[in-house]
């Protein structure tokens, strides 16, 4: 665009800074996009020690206060209260298992048996890393204090029940 001559006098020599500003903002944008602004988040996980020689590490669980959640295929879970094989596991989507935990915790707390409410998480071969993280996250949100991860001792009757439902 032609510059309007505002005075009768000769215009002072000035540099048009617009392209330079454009370039500067381009660089700023580039740096914002290529750098890490915040460090990634992490969840800390503790697994029970595998040393069987230390029986004092074993936790005694109360059947009425223990909920086992098996993570299966297609974002589905199977859960039951108490001892494996005594009651048929309930099958449901992972997204709604939080409600079940809340319900079971209420029943367990009302039972009057001493001890904390325990959730045992057993990820099986069909589940994904995402399922596992979601499950642990859900327990954190619901403030379930005692949680155990057990991926070694998946019992036959648990496998059987999961197979019948097609989630193993």
């Amino acid at each position, binding site marked *: *665009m032609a*510059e*309007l001559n*505002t005075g009768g006098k000769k215009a002072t020599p*000035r540099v*048009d*800074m*617009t392209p*330079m*500003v454009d370039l*500067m*903002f381009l*660089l*700023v944008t580039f*740096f*914002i996009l*290529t*750098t*890490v*602004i*915040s*460090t*990634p*988040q*992490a*969840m*800390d*996980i*503790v*697994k*029970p*020690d*595998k*040393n069987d020689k230390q029986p004092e590490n074993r936790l005694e669980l109360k059947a009425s206060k223990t909920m086992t959640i098996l*993570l299966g295929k297609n974002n589905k879970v199977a859960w039951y209260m108490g001892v494996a094989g005594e009651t048929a596991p309930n099958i449901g989507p992972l997204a709604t298992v939080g409600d079940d935990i809340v319900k079971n915790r209420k029943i367990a707390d009302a039972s009057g048996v001493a001890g904390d409410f325990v959730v045992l998480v057993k*990820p*099986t*071969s*069909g*589940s*994904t*890393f*995402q*399922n*596992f*993280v*979601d499950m*642990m*996250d859900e327990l*954190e*949100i619901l403030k379930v204090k005692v949680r155990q991860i057990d*991926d070694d001792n998946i019992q036959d009757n648990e496998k059987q029940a999961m197979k019948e439902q097609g989630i193993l």
Partner: protein
Amino acid sequence: MPRIKVKRTSTVTDMTAMCDVAALLLTFFILTATARQPEPLAVSTPSSTYEFKVPAENNATLTIGQGKVFFEVAGVNVRKRTLELMAEQYNMTFTPEELKAFMGIGSFGVPLQSLKQLIAMKAGDRMKPGVQPGIPADSTDNQLSAWVLNARKATKEINQQDMRISIKGDSKEEYPVVKKVIDILQDQKVNKFLLVTNAEAKKK
């Protein structure tokens, strides 16, 4: 009566001030930010509401995706010492130049036998998909276990602190692959580890 003169002003704005602001912002970003490390194995981590920052030091990251495992240990000096310990264990020698080049490599996933070739490669070629097959973690050749153990030794030696282990898994990764890695760690009595996740807003 004379006509009222409309004063005509120039439409050109002075961009100098704006240029200053942009330069200031640019300087700020260059100075405060750390460059994002290019990753040879891109993974999309699942999200969680945990608010625990991944430590920048005394930390090793195991990236799991597509059935492969990649390894990275934080801190250039720790990294160098780890490779020295690895070389000792596997009866290999690395030249000072190779050790120096290795300090600059972040995450990698090749067997130790082909690490020399990887170091000799150009940085751009290392990142190409398929170049790095992952670190062997079978029971016959468990190099991953050796890397973790030596990295822990090196961290203890240099920083006098225990090393933490972060697992950065792809959200689609099947659990058995993750379990295999966790089992390797548990064999070394590492029962505590971090799972790297994306931040997610807390549900109310």
